[in-house]
């Protein structure tokens, strides 16, 4: 019997607002514990929340980018539960009237476009963090309390781990592009919850699902779904029913294990947040937000193919990250060689970045440097081979590509007279090659070119060297 894997996702992303959702504390990550706190995010008695309008603006932008309908009227609700990282003992969230409803996003699976439904997007506040390492027992860091989040809920339209990863990547890209979230997985600013079930292929009815929360990498996401669906299939084949439960994914061991069943599920006692007024957004405001939406990956990709004549593969890769696309565009503005720029961005640069543990946003040179490097090749100043060395140095040394070339004396020999002398000597010293050529063995040209490169330490302009070699050899034969 063949099984089909059905996945629905909930994606939490922290918004890039400067301040928290209900107070003016900064949202900055990584500062010392409990330095971004105030009576409001500490949940002290008598204080009141004031909704940060930027949170609404950002969430609306995400909603529009994911083709959602923006609600003219929505409201905040309280989700009540006790935990030491939740100062008010309720999370202010949205229950039955979310900000965005009914969207869809197209993903690309094996060259096929597939729409994934977005059920809803709502806004809410993040909780704090518990620090268990301390010798004083467990401590609470409240810095993250009140950092604004959106929760994106998908329809169970995702079939299998790969689609889930592609969908998650697509969401991350969209949020990055729209400036809604920086989606830094390592900082937990985007997190994935997945609902996994399996069913006999061809059947309609959804199987019993299990949930895994807080997966914080694409790899974990893909592996968790792979493992969990396999586990469910094995259970079903054994004739065991699937129990609806929350399972914990252990990324180190690569297994999921039961955490709590549906019966133990908490009753959050949602009710409308009485300290906040409903959120109203007019059609004009929605229209305006739409017009301010930046170019999204799909549109950008199409434009790169049309405007820069890039192959689809290149356009897809370059637009897969906002920063990469930005780097590309800034470079192409200075040096109009899109395909070459794309090549650098797809091959050499990622390799160096990986080696140096950098990212395109922390790359140690600027687009005009890459443009200069490409121009150096174009002008025949350096060969493509030398350019690769220059690129390597651009990651480790100061100075522009031109300076690097000069410093290392890598400029190609452009002086025809000097090259002529060197070549005449090489031809003179290799009579065998000349006789080979005259007897029709053209391969000997390659040998001579090699000798010239060796003699010039690779700095001879290959085209020029070839031309002169042919002239000198022809003269010799005649």
């Amino acid at each position, binding site marked *: 019997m063949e099984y089909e894997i059905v996945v629905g996702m909930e994606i939490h992303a922290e918004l890039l607002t400067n301040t928290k959702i209900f107070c003016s504390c900064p949202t900055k990550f990584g500062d010392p514990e409990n330095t971004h706190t105030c009576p409001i995010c500490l949940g*002290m*008695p*008598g*204080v*009141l929340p*004031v909704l940060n309008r930027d949170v609404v603006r950002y969430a609306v932008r995400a909603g529009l980018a994911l083709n959602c309908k923006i609600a003219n009227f929505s409201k905040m609700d309280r989700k009540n539960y006790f935990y*030491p990282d939740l100062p*008010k003992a309720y999370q202010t969230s949205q229950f039955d009237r979310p900000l965005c409803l009914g969207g869809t996003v197209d993903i690309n699976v094996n060259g096929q476009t597939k729409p994934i439904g977005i059920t809803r997007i709502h806004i809410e506040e993040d909780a704090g963090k518990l620090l268990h390492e301390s010798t004083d027992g467990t401590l609470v860091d409240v810095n993250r309390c009140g950092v604004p989040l959106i929760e994106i809920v998908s329809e169970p339209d995702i079939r299998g781990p790969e689609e889930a990863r592609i969908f998650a990547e697509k969401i991350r890209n969209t949020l990055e592009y729209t400036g809604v979230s920086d989606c830094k997985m390592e900082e937990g600013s985007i997190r994935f919850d997945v609902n996994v079930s399996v069913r006999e292929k061809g059947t309609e009815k959804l199987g019993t699902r299990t949930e895994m929360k807080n997966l914080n990498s694409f790899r974990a996401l893909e592996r968790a779904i792979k493992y969990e669906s396999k586990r469910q299939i094995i259970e079903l084949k054994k004739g065991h029913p699937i129990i609806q439960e929350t399972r914990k994914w252990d990324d180190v061991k690569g297994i999921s294990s039961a955490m709590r069943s549906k019966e133990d599920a908490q009753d959050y*006692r949602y*009710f409308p947040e009485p300290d906040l007024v409903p959120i109203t957004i007019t059609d004009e405001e929605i229209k305006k937000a739409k017009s301010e939406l930046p170019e999204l990956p799909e549109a950008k990709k199409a434009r790169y193919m049309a405007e820069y004549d890039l192959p689809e593969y290149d356009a897809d890769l370059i637009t897969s990250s906002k920063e990469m696309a930005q780097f590309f565009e800034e470079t192409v503005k200075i040096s109009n060689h899109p395909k070459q720029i794309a090549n650098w961005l797809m091959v050499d640069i990622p390799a160096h970045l990986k080696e140096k543990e950098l990212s395109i946003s922390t790359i140690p040179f600027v687009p005009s440097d890459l443009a200069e490097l490409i121009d150096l090749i174009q002008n025949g100043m350096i060969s493509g081979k030398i350019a690769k060395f220059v690129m390597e140095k651009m990651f480790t040394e100061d100075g522009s590509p031109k300076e690097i070339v000069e410093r290392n004396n890598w400029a190609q020999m452009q002086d025809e007279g000097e090259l002529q002398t060197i070549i005449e000597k090489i031809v003179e010293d290799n009579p065998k090659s000349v006789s080979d050529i005259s007897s029709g063995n053209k391969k000997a040209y390659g040998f001579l070119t090699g000798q010239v490169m060796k003699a010039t330490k690779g700095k001879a302009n290959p085209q020029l060297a070839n031309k002169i070699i042919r002239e000198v050899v022809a003269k010799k034969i005649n």
Partner: protein
Amino acid sequence: MNINRLTIHETKEALSKGEFSSEELVASYADRIEKVDPKVDAFLLKCLDDAKEHAKKIDSEGKTESSILSGIPYALKDNICTKDIKTTAASKMLYNFVPPYSADVYERLQNLDSIMLGKVNMDEFAMGSSTENSAFKTTKNPWDLSTVPGGSSGGSAVAVAADMAAYALGSDTGGSIRQPASLCGVVGLKPTYGLVSRYGLIAFASSLDQIGTFTKDVEDAAIVLNAIAGHDAKDSTSLNISKKDYTVNLKRGAKGLKVGILKNFNTEGVQEEVKTAMDESIAAFKDAGAEIVEVDFRYFKQALAAYYIVACAEASSNLARYDGVRYGYRAKEYTDYIDMYYKTRSEGFGSEVKRRIMLGTYALSSGYYDAYYKKGMQVRTVIINEYNKIFEQCDVLMTPTSATTAFKIGEKVDDPLQMYMSDTFTVPINIAGIPAVSIPTKLDQKGLPIGIQIVGPALGEEKILQAAWALEQSFNFRKNQPSL
């Protein structure tokens, strides 16, 4: 001259004329507090040294006339946060809580150089109608020390009634200003929801809580309302409307006013003398040229039920933050964090607070939400509509504030339902978010004050104060004085 007997406007006049200084004024109040408070137990925290300092400063800087409230001493209900001054909500849970911020109302009064004498007693977290639910002390009614002052703002009412403060602020969630004002013979005003900022008011039921005033007469209520009303960006439910001077039309009299009375007024359980006071009030209005209109309000029972569901539901969530993790009381011994929660909350809250948390938790629970909380909210809409209809027929509505005068201490503590019933006339007003003022009319045979409540439509403060002032003139209640 007995300085402490004076109203704000009388005190101000005397201050202006130089009959006494701010310092002398505060000293006189301090003496009164030292003498009388041991009998009535209104104050949880006296700030008399700071108050004297403040007064001295006002005198020396010649600021006695910088505002109508400058130099005027007042008391604050202890659920209103005061920066660097202990604020407990009369709960063991917050026995040591010193807020690093101030309530908006306190800041406004500070800016006007009014002088805070101290923090006064209340039912724990404002839950109660007798101030017997305070974790610290039971406040006594100055008219009869064996009776309750009402609640939850019993301390505020007593501070004013016993001349220990020129005025006081309290909070009113279901009658917590008006009922104690009625039982103690002072004027108690609950403004329209959103007119006064709730920022820094320790929440009981967020959608019902409203800060208001206790004063010696209606004119003072208008004066203090002028000072505390106004938009506050820190409170999202604060109304953003232009400021009004509530004293301007105050003394227009009742001529031409349409005063509504309830035609289906349920007289069962209402003390005879309260009924008499109602009849005399009707006569007084008629004499003053007002028109009496009979109106219908059909939902006292439903309002009370909806109130206890909605208020408890919100309270169960609002009070969930008292977990011992960050501030306030924490149990001494516990095995893990869950155990710490259990013990902290079991030991830190009093029984009435626990009762309401449990009621509210139940009302919000999955499977019960629709039958309770949701139904309660629907009843709210019905009641708002009912009042809208009423105020199409009249300018203000008049009812008793409380069905009875002050009851004995201990009389209702074991009968919470009986206690809840004492809110019948006040609760629907909070449900609808509209303003109401209670004014004293006369004493019953036991010598206990009887209050009458004047209710208005949303933002109808001017009208209810105008009506209340007119009624006040005909009763002249201030000739009475508790003998302490």
